[in-house]
């Protein structure tokens, strides 16, 4: 081989603590190295041109660049050597920045370590073989998991872009949390009025297939070719016949069940349509409370249904959808306020969450939009809002800010004044976070025009006294403890990852953080992509965010999908495992240990052998350590290459 070594200064990032000239000079002594130089910024245009020129002038057949982490610029340099006419895999990187110059200041030690890293990179390169990617075809259908506003936007954008869309939603209706809101900040638009048309568009779009009351059961395959098994849960109502007339709800005798859509304020029937603008507007029976299921005696809904849609014997159904890309838009759930016993949530009925308060405010809610205390149904006069409940709190392991509570609390204070003109709202806050367009003006309106009393300080305890709730807090600006005699206490509960998010992430094979929020590929530059090819994110599943941000991410995810599908074929990464059939004894251990199920058993001349499914293999290498024969090798990271690196290191 004719190997060229390029040692990058990276300005002073590397040169500051590593003598790059010495590294380059020393590497000339390594076997098969015929050219070595140091360069200011290898990744820059002149830097790359320098590499290409050297390849051509010195007839190099392989290149080592000692610079930053491959995660930064490996693709950059691979493309560069390809432009110079080499196979892009005849290239190795030595990370002398993140692994050397950034971790210590001892110039001599750093230079020596850099020399070692270049030495082993050279040994690896000497054993590299040219590799070519395969092409495979893709299924231009997209699955969107989650029918909240982010998922709805992604679905509409993909469908309008000409793609077939499958939308899977866990609840019986789409709309997510936005459908539960009364009004939205900062315009005080009615939430259903602005979301409704989008929901109808989804229902009527000829390119969108909606599976409501369904969940993702399992996902197999790879980008361009996913097979998703969707469990359509039994609704016990034939939705092809149900017209959503609601006669069943009127006559159902089991009326005192907790109403999940209405945040458990007020009861509902066992057969239930969550709200009037639900899409699909179809009934669902809850078998845990329905008398027909629990006691075996009732059947009233079956008798009154005008289309005979009730089906007590319905079972869950599994449907397989083949798609080429998946967008996760599963949203958020609220912090469990019972974890803060000093606020009395769960013990005192007049301490409720902000979302429950939205249902009280909403005209389609359990009180018809009349704000009433859950305890006695009376109209409250003093309403206390407490912000940061389960947010910005290390002691509850929720140190992050949920981002939208300051805004919706101001909105709720404003709406309270509209609903109850002689009411007085109090808001206990630590800071006001209102960064969006017209946001700060909106929070100021609540204070300046709607008479909401904003008190800067946290609340230590809430307890009953007579029929009032005493809220004991602090006003740190006035410098004292304060008390408010409240009729109703509304807690701005923090946003958490949706229930079941980590389990879904494992099915999707994407990462999630310690709070269950899905991990984006890069926090600044790739907010809607994941590290798993073909899986994208949109909305609060990636981190709490408000409606415009969720809608924006929905469109962004759709754009990524449309870009992915703009080609007819995709290239697969050739850095994958390959089986040497001569050595394979068919023990099947690699098949069992592969986390991606990328290896299958095949028959070869009457013997069992392993075969790698090229497009699924992620190149993790677990199979290569498992194989007792050394029959399965990871291209570009073979056992011989790794041993050569170790030898070089030990002998230096």
């Amino acid at each position: 081989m004719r190997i060229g070594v390029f040692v990058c200064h990276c300005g002073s990032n590397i040169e500051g603590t590593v003598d790059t000239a010495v590294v380059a000079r020393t590497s000339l002594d390594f076997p098969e190295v015929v050219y070595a130089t140091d360069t200011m910024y290898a990744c820059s245009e002149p830097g790359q041109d320098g590499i290409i020129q050297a390849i051509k002038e010195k007839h190099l057949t392989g290149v080592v660049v000692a610079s930053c982490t491959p995660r930064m610029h490996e693709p950059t340099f691979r493309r560069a050597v390809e432009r110079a006419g080499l196979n892009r895999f005849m290239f190795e990187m030595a990370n002398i920045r993140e692994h050397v110059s950034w971790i210590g200041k001892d110039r001599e030690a750093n230079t020596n370590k850099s020399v070692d890293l270049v030495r082993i990179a050279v040994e690896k390169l000497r054993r590299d073989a040219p590799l070519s990617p395969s092409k495979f075809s893709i299924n231009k259908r997209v699955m969107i998991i989650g029918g909240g506003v982010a998922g709805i936007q992604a679905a509409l954008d993909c469908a309008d872009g000409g793609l077939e869309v499958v939308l899977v939603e866990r609840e019986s209706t789409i709309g997510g949390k936005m459908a539960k809101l009364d009004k939205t900040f900062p315009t005080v638009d009615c939430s259903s009025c602005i979301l409704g048309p989008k929901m109808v568009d989804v229902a009527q779009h000829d390119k969108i297939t909606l599976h409501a009351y369904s969940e993702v059961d399992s996902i197999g395959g790879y980008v361009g070719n996913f097979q998703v098994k969707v469990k359509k849960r039994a609704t016990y109502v034939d939705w092809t016949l149900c017209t959503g007339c609601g006669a069943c709800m009127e006559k159902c005798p089991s009326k005192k069940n907790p109403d999940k859509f209405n945040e458990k304020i007020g009861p509902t029937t066992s057969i239930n349509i969550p709200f009037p603008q639900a899409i699909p507007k179809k009934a669902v029976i809850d078998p845990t409370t329905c008398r027909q299921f629990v006691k075996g005696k009732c059947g009233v809904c079956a008798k009154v249904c005008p289309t005979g849609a009730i089906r007590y014997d319905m079972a869950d159904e599994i449907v397989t959808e083949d798609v080429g890309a998946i967008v996760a838009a599963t949203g958020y759930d609220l912090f469990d306020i019972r974890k803060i016993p000093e606020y009395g949530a769960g013990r005192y009925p007049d301490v409720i969450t902000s979302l429950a308060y939205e249902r009280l405010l909403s005209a389609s809610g359990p009180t018809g939009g009349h704000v009433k205390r859950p305890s006695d149904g009376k109209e409250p006069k003093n309403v206390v809002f407490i912000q940061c409940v389960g947010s910005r709190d290390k002691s509850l392991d929720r140190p992050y800010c949920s981002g939208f509570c300051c805004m919706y609390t101001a909105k709720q204070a404003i709406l309270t004044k509209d609903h109850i003109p002689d009411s007085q709202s109090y808001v206990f806050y630590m800071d006001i976070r209102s960064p969006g367009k017209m946001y700060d003006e909106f929070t100021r309106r609540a204070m300046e025009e709607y008479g909401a009393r904003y008190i800067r300080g946290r609340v230590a305890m809430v307890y009953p006294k007579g029929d009032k709730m005493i809220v004991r807090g602090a006003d740190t600006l006035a410098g004292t403890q304060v008390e408010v005699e409240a009729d109703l206490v509304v807690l701005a509960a923090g946003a958490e990852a949706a229930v079941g998010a980590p389990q879904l992430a494992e099915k999707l094979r994407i990462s999630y953080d310690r709070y269950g929020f899905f991990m984006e590929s890069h926090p600044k530059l790739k907010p809607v992509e994941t590290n798993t090819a073909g899986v994208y994110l949109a909305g609060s599943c990636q981190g709490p965010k408000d409606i415009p941000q969720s809608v924006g991410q929905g469109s962004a995810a759709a754009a990524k999908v449309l870009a992915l599908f703009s080609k007819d074929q995709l290239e697969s990464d050739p850095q994958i495992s390959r089986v040497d059939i001569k050595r394979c004894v068919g023990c099947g251990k690699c098949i069992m240990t592969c986390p991606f199920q990328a290896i299958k058993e095949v028959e070869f001349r009457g013997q069992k052998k392993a075969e790698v499914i090229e497009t699924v293999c992620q190149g993790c290498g677990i199979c290569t350590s498992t194989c007792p024969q050394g029959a399965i090798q990871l291209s570009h990271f073979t056992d011989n290459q790794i041993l050569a690196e170790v030898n070089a290191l030990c002998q230096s």
Partner: protein
Amino acid sequence: MSEAIAYYPGCSGLGTSKEYDASTRAVCAKVGLSLVDVPDWSCCGSTPAHTTDHTLSAALSARNLQLVADMGMKLAVTPCPSCLTNLRTANHRMEKAAFAEKANRLLDEPYSGGVNAQSVLQALVETVGLDALKAAVRTPLAGLKVACYYGCIMNRPPELMAFDDCENPMAMDNVLAAMGAEIVPFPLKVECCGASYGIPRGDIVARLAGKLLEAATLAGADMVAVACPLCQMNLDLRQGQVNRALGASYRIPVPYFTQLMGVALNIADADIGFDKLNVDPRPVLSKALTGAQ
């Protein structure tokens, strides 16, 4: 009978909370909790020690922890939450070698470590168990409405005291419910009564104890059950001072929970010691019990 547990009575058990000590001993004997006094125990230092210096406070407490170790035991029970927090804090802080060295320099016999303390309430709930307690009841406290007041430090801070919920503890509620009493919801279970400020700043105690008595009255309680000598003193002995300061006229008995247990377990009057309290619980008690029949 259970295995013997070391018993650390605390200084007020000899004087102002004699009846708490007597009823505790009698109740424990009745339910099979075998208490052995820590021989020649000394004061843990209480609040005055830890507000002066942490090493001094640890040494005063650790002398007693070592006495427990010398008994061959690893656990002491005490009825006083202030003693409890000082003993537990000393043991916890002396797990760090540097601090232990400083504290041990003050002691005749250094503390070898590994001795912990728990409240009598915890021992009753965890070692004896609610079922056994319920089975021992002979005179159920039916018809008696009790508000359970735990005091500020028995369960706080939760990382140190490690027993029961720190905002809404239920151990005393459960024990007295097992005795047959009707426990009324009391919203200020862990709100401080004024602690040791009775003598230097009686005005503070009057205000804080007043709030607690007000809450108990609003809750409809016949009595307030307590588990701390200072709480008992502040709410009962100083009830007259509270009334004078606030212009109120409270007359609520504040017995120790062990005294109420004593009634339910048919313990001798002399050991229960109701006559030692300021507001006599006996009239309210007999009215409630006969009313229930």
